[in-house]
C-alpha cells in the first residue's frame, strides 16, 4: 500500500510541478478522444434508428410498385409468389402539390386504410392515423416543411388538415424519398433552363404523405393514372436482395422492387457521411495529438532522466521508476479519456438530431460499453507509448549517468550550417535553431500539413454543400448537420494545431535559451533573435502549409472519395487564390502564435541565461 501511495504521490507531484505541460498533454489527448467518441457514437447512431423503426412499423422486406392501374395484376402475382409470408396493399399513389402556410412542395400521396396494416403500419409520432379529410405527413418532410398537427394544408387545391406525423421503414426519410409515381421524380437543385426541358408533371424532391384511399382517388380525375405500391413480408427477410434479383423487371409492366437493405442504406446515408467525416477528423486529430505528445514527451525526457537517476540513487528499483512514469501518463490519459467521452456524448445528439424521419433518431445516441472501452484503450495506449522509452531507458541507464544528465545534445547538420552562413543574420540564426532539432522540425511540418489538408477538405465539402445543397439528396437540415460536423472537427483541429504550434515554439525557446543569450552577447539584437526564433517556426509552417495544400489536401480528399464511394467530379476543388489565402493565413497565424513566446525568449536578459 505504501508503495502505491509513494508512486501516486511522486506522479501527482511531478504533474503539478509543470501545470502548463500537464494541461497541454491533457488537451492533446482529450481532443483525440473526443473526436473518436463522436465517430464511434455516430456509427452506432446511424444504424440503430432504422432498425428500431423497422421493428416498430413491421417494416416491409421488399417494397413493390407499379406505375398504373393496368399493371396491378403483376403486383397480385408477386404477393402470391414463393417466399412471400405476407403483404399489405396494393395502395394507390398519386402525385400532388402540397401547399402549407405559403410553402409549396411536390408530394406523393399514398392512400391507406384507416385500419392497421400487418406490414408497414407507419408509426405515428404525433397526432393520429389517416381519416377522411385528414393527412398524415412523413416526419422528416414535416420537419423540413415546418408543418405541425392541426395545420391546414391543400393538396392540388383541395383542403385537408394535418392529423398526424409518422415514420416508416418502407421509404428513406425526406429527401431520400424513393419514387412511386409514374410521372417520375427528380432530386437536387434545378436551374431554370433545365427545368424548362423537363417533362411536365415531373415531381421535384417529393415528400411523402398518407391519406385515405378515397381521398387519394379524389385527387385525380383518371383512376387509370394512379400508381400502386405494395409492401411484402418475406419468409427469409435476409434474402430480400436475392428475392429482388429473382424477380427482375421484365418489361414496362412488371413491378419495380426495392429490398429493405437498400432502403436502410438510403436512410442512413447522412449519418454515415457524418461518421466518415468524423472518423477522418479523428485520424487527423490523432496524428496531430501524436505530434504534440512527441514534442512534449521529448522535451520532458531530459528532465525525466534526471528524476530517474535521483529515484535510483535513493534506492528505487527500475520497476518503481517505470511505475512512477507510467502512473503519471496513465493519470493524464484516464482524465483525458473521461473528458473526451463526456464531451463526445454531450455533443453527439446535436449531430444526430435531424434523423427525425426515423423512430429513436431524435433520442440521445447510446454510449455503449464498447465505445467507452475503445476510447479509454486508445488514451491508455498513448500513455504507455509515451512511457515506454523513458521507462526502458531508466531500467537500463546507469544511475551515475542519469544523474550527470547531459541534456539531449543538439544535432549538427553541417550543410545547413554552411548554407546559413550566407544568409542575413535572422535567417542564419533561424536555420541553425531549426537544424539543432531536425525531428522537431519534421513534427512541426507534419502538424501544419495535417491541419492544412483538413482545411482543404473542409473547403471542398463546404463549397459542395453550398453550391449543390440537394445534389447528394441532402435537405437543408441535413446540410446544416454536415456543416455542424465539419465545424466541430474543424474547431478541434484548429485548437489542437494551435496548441501544437505553441508547444513546439515554447520547447524551441527553452531549448535555445542559452544559445540565444550567447548570440546576443556576441552582438545579435533582441529583434534579430526574436525574429530568428519565430522564423524557425514559420519556415516549417510555410513548408507544411504548401505540402498540406498539395499534395496533402488533394490526397486526403481523394481518400475521402475512395472511402465514401462518392464521385469527386461534382466537387469544386479550391481555387488557387483560396489555397494561397490558406497558406498565407496559416503562416500569419503561426507567426502570431509563435511571436509571443519568441519575443519573450528573445528579450530575456542575457546575463540571466548565461
Amino acid at each position, binding site marked *: 500500500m505504501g508503495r502505491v501511495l509513494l508512486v501516486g504521490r511522486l506522479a501527482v507531484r511531478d504533474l503539478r510541478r509543470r501545470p502548463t505541460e500537464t494541461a497541454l498533454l491533457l488537451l492533446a489527448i482529450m481532443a483525440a478522444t473526443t473526436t473518436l467518441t463522436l465517430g464511434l457514437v455516430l456509427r452506432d447512431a446511424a444504424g440503430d434508428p432504422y432498425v428500431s423503426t423497422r421493428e416498430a412499423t413491421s417494416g416491409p422486406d421488399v417494397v413493390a410498385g407499379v406505375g398504373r392501374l393496368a399493371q396491378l395484376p403483376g403486383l397480385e402475382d408477386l404477393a402470391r409468389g414463393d417466399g412471400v409470408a405476407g403483404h399489405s396493399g396494393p395502395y394507390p399513389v398519386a402525385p400532388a402539390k402540397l401547399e402549407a402556410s405559403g410553402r409549396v412542395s411536390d408530394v406523393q400521396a399514398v392512400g391507406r386504410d384507416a385500419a392497421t396494416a400487418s406490414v408497414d403500419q407507419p408509426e405515428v409520432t404525433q397526432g393520429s392515423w389517416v381519416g377522411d379529410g385528414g393527412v398524415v405527413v412523413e416526419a422528416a418532410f414535416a420537419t423540413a416543411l415546418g408543418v405541425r398537427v392541426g395545420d391546414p394544408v391543400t393538396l392540388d387545391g383541395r383542403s385537408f388538415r394535418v392529423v398526424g406525423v409518422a415514420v416508416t421503414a418502407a421509404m428513406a426519410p425526406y429527401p431520400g424519398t424513393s419514387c412511386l409515381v409514374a410521372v417520375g421524380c427528380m432530386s437536387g437543385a434545378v436551374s431554370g433552363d433545365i427545368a424548362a426541358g423537363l417533362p411536365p408533371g415531373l415531381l421535384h424532391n417529393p415528400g411523402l404523405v398518407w391519406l385515405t384511399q378515397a381521398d387519394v382517388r379524389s385527387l385525380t380525375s383518371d383512376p387509370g393514372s394512379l400508381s400502386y405500391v405494395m409492401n411484402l413480408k418475406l419468409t427469409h427477410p435476409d434474402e430480400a436482395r436475392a428475392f429482388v434479383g429473382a424477380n427482375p423487371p421484365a418489361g414496362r409492366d412488371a413491378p419495380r422492387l426495392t429490398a429493405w437493405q437498400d432502403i436502410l442504406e438510403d436512410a442512413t446515408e447522412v449519418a454515415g457521411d457524418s461518421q466518415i467525416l468524423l472518423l477522418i477528423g479523428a485520424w487527423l486529430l490523432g496524428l496531430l495529438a501524436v505530434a504534440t505528445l512527441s514534442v512534449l514527451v521529448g522535451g520532458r525526457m531530459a528532465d525525466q532522466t534526471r528524476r530517474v537517476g535521483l529515484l535510483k540513487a535513493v534506492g528505487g528499483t527500475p520497476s518503481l521508476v517505470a511505475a512512477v512514469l507510467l502512473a503519471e501518463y496513465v493519470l493524464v490519459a484516464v482524465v483525458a479519456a473521461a473528458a473526451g467521452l463526456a464531451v463526445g456524448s454531450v455533443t453527439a445528439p446535436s449531430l444526430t438530431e435531424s434523423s427525425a424521419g426515423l423512430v429513436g433518431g431524435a433520442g440521445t445516441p447510446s454510449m455503449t460499453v464498447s465505445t467507452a472501452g475503445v476510447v479509454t484503450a486508445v488514451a491508455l495506449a498513448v500513455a504507455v507509448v509515451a512511457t515506454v522509452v523513458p521507462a526502458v531507458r531508466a531500467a537500463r541507464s546507469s544511475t551515475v549517468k542519469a544523474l550527470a544528465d547531459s541534456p539531449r*545534445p*543538439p*544535432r*549538427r*547538420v553541417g550543410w545547413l*550550417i554552411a548554407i546559413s*552562413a*550566407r544568409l542575413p*543574420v535572422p535567417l*542564419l540564426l533561424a536555420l*541553425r535553431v531549426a*537544424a*539543432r532539432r531536425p525531428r522537431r522540425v519534421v513534427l512541426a511540418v507534419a502538424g501544419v500539413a495535417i491541419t492544412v489538408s483538413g482545411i482543404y477538405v473542409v473547403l471542398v465539402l463546404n463549397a459542395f454543400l453550398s453550391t449543390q445543397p440537394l445534389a447528394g439528396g441532402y435537405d437543408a437540415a441535413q446540410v446544416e448537420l454536415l456543416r455542424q460536423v465539419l465545424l466541430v472537427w474543424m474547431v478541434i483541429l484548429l485548437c489542437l494545431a494551435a496548441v501544437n504550434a505553441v508547444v513546439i515554439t515554447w520547447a524551441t525557446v527553452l531549448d535555445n535559451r*542559452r*544559445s540565444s543569450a*550567447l*548570440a*546576443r*552577447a*556576441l*552582438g*545579435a*539584437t*533582441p*529583434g*534579430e533573435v526574436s525574429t530568428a526564433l519565430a522564423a524557425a517556426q514559420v519556415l516549417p509552417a510555410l513548408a507544411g502549409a504548401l505540402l498540406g495544400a498539395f499534395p496533402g489536401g488533394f490526397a486526403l480528399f481523394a481518400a475521402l472519395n475512395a472511402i465514401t464511394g462518392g464521385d469527386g467530379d461534382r466537387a469544386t476543388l479550391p481555387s488557387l487564390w483560396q489555397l494561397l489565402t490558406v497558406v498565407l493565413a496559416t503562416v500569419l497565424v503561426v507567426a502570431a502564435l509563435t511571436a509571443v513566446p519568441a519575443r519573450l525568449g528573445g528579450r530575456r*536578459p*542575457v*546575463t540571466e541565461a*548565461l
Partner: protein
Amino acid sequence: MSNAADTSVLRARGLRKDYGRGEGLVRAVDGVDLDVGPGETVAVMGPSGCGKSTLLHLLGGLDRPSGGEVVLNGRRIDDIGEKALARMRRTAVGFVFQAFHLMEELTALENVELSALLAGRSPRAARRRAEELLDQVGLAGRARFLPSALSGGQRQRVAVARALSNEPLVVLADEPTGNLDSAATLDVLHLFESLHESGQTLVIVTHDTRIAATADRLISMRDGAFVDETRLTGGTTGRLGALAGLED
C-alpha cells in the same frame, strides 16, 4: 586613476547596480569609477559574490546599470537602446566566459566565425579571419573539431579567438580560467600574455591570482566597491632568488 579620462577606452563613473527593493535591496555594484587606457590589462579581483561579474556585464552592455555611466570609446552606452547596444557589442567588445559558451553543434572554426557573421561580414571574409585567429591561438589543426572533442583549455582558446573576431576595442573576460586545471590555465595565461603584448585592451574579472598577476593594474573589489588598487608594472626582478630560498 592615472589615465586621463579622455584617452581611456573604457570609463565608468559612479556605476551602480541594484537587485531587489526595500529590505531585500542588494547593491551588487556600488559606485564604481574605472578608467581603462588603450592597451592596458586590468584585473578585478574579489571574493565570489562581490559583484565583479555584474560589473563586467555592465561594462560590456550585457546588463543595464541602475545608476552612473559607462563610456566606451568616448560614447555613453548606459542609456542607448537594446539594438544600438547589440551593435556596439558586435564591434567594440569581445566576451570570454568562464563556461566557454561555445555552440555545441558548431565546429571550432564555425564558432569563431559566428561573431563575424553576426557583425555582417561576408562569409568568405569571416571564414578567413576565423582561420587566422585559430592559427593565432594555436588551434589551426583542430578547426574542424566540435567543442566536445576539445579539452577545456582548447575550448577556452576557441572562445578567445571568437572574442577577437571583430577586432574589439576591449576584451572582457569573466573568470577565463575558472573551469580549467593548472596546465590549461597556463595555456590561457600564455594567450592573454600575448594579447597584452600585441596591445589588446583587456579587462579580466577573476579570483585566480595567477591570471590577475598578468595585469598591469589590479583592483580589489569588496561588496560591490573598489577597495584597493595595485600597479603591478615596475617589478622586483632580482629578488626571485629569495623566493626560491637561494638568498638569505
